[in-house]
């Protein structure tokens, strides 16, 4: 019976794989049929690389005033097609030397300190986490109302010797001096903690409790769209026991904005 189930699970995985293959096959031609943005070269020439990376050799140049179609973007590289049908990759830096049909400059935001100061969304992952002595893994996402204020949602799992569990936090964060490379911030919010105590002589039940937190941290802009984020949260877990529980949480991780 279990064997059979295992086989069916494997079969479903294989099916997912096949679906993925078919989807990817469909995605290709669909992309080719799309309408592309046309830009005109204003620099003496535009260099086309064989791949999307600084090391790939230049194999073609487009003359001034000639146009290229912008097919797609991968990180800071744009795949373009010339009028003669030659396709290659152009760096975002070089693309800044082109104009659109209406004469305006082509602009792509590669992420800089200005964008770090004011952006709409950010997300990150905490690779170091300590949740009341337990190791923790978590991710977060934030939406900004203005450069100072954001609403944040974080989801995490903590894995300790006494218990495991998951945490969901929703709150507000206020950044002081968002224009500074190193900026402090404070947080406040509420959440839910699901705790699964580990087996002891008497097996306690899993429990889901509401929590609230206050905290603060530092964010440090690295480069492009990257920044580091470290924070401390003090959680109060509202238990139905005699005393509420207090949990200290330390986290450190990478984040990016977009």
């Amino acid at each position: 019976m279990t064997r059979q189930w295992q086989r069916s699970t494997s079969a479903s995985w294989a099916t997912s794989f096949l679906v993925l293959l078919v989807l990817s096959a469909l995605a290709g031609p669909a992309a080719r049929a799309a309408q592309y943005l046309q830009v005109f070269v204003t620099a003496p020439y535009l260099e086309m690389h064989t791949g999307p990376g600084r090391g790939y050799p230049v194999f073609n140049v487009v003359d001034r005033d000639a146009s290229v179609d912008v097919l797609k973007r991968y990180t800071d590289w744009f795949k373009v097609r010339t009028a003669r049908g030659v396709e290659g990759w152009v760096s975002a830096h070089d693309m800044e030397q082109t104009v659109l049909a209406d004469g305006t400059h082509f602009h792509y935001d590669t992420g800089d300190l200005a964008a770090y100061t004011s952006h709409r969304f950010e997300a990150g992952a905490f690779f170091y986490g300590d949740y009341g002595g337990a190791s923790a893994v978590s991710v977060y996402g934030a939406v900004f109302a203005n450069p100072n204020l954001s609403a944040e949602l974080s989801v995490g799992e903590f894995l300790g010797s006494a218990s495991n569990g998951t945490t969901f936090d929703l709150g507000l964060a206020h950044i002081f001096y968002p224009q500074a490379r190193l900026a402090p911030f404070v947080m406040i919010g509420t959440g839910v903690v699901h705790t699964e105590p580990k087996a002891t002589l008497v097996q306690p039940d899993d429990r889901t409790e509401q929590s609230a937190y206050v905290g603060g941290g530092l964010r440090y802009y690295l480069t492009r769209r990257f920044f580091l984020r470290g924070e401390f949260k003090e959680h109060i877990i509202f238990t139905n026991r005699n005393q509420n529980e207090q949990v200290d949480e330390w986290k450190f991780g990478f984040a990016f904005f977009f």
Partner: protein
Amino acid sequence: MEIRLRILLLTGLLALSGSLSGCATLRHLFGHEEAPAPTPAPADEGASTDRADDSSPPRVIEPEVERRNIKVPRIKSQDIELGGYIGTLNIEDFGAHRVFGVQLAYHVTEDFFFQAEAGRSKAGRTSFETLSNISLLTDNERWFKYYDMSVGYNFLPGEVFLGRNHAMTSSFYILAGVGSTDFGGDSKFTGNFGAGYKILPTDWLAVHVAVEDRVFNTDLLGVNKLASNLEAHLGLTVFF
């Protein structure tokens, strides 16, 4: 009130039609077939706008000075990579078994990316279990399920040539991260690190070969130790 206003306006219009014999619109109205003047004098333009719109006949020449709005097509981005993999996971003390997983990556720059993986495998029996015929784990506890979040770095990018006419981009990468492993009835904080190689037959498709180690502390077999679980897998991903 409205009728009175209309009569007033019509009277005004009639009076104007006498005085503005050069107005192209009105000449046309009264059956004159001469070619309209190429540009009406500014004074006439001003006079005609004074009249109420609903009573004036439609213009023959509408000035088309509207700015052409160029709709800028959106550039498709391909920073997200999604796919699956199949491979072999060596679960410490429990043998090597087939592993299936899914992976999702976000490429921030040409060098760095974030990656999340989730996979599962099913452990076999330890040699002790085989010899003594005692089961340490239930069937359900033998599922080895994990997820991880990693930061990856692409290095040694290059091109692979297939014959004379085909070149595929390729790259090595290293990654390290943290996650959780659910095995033997318990979830463990797990560190993972590994390296891989990918080839892109087209811009949107990548074939991966990767080796990763998943390390966690376990006391499943009585003593607390660091279990190292090596995994080798072959993956297929799509960029979108």
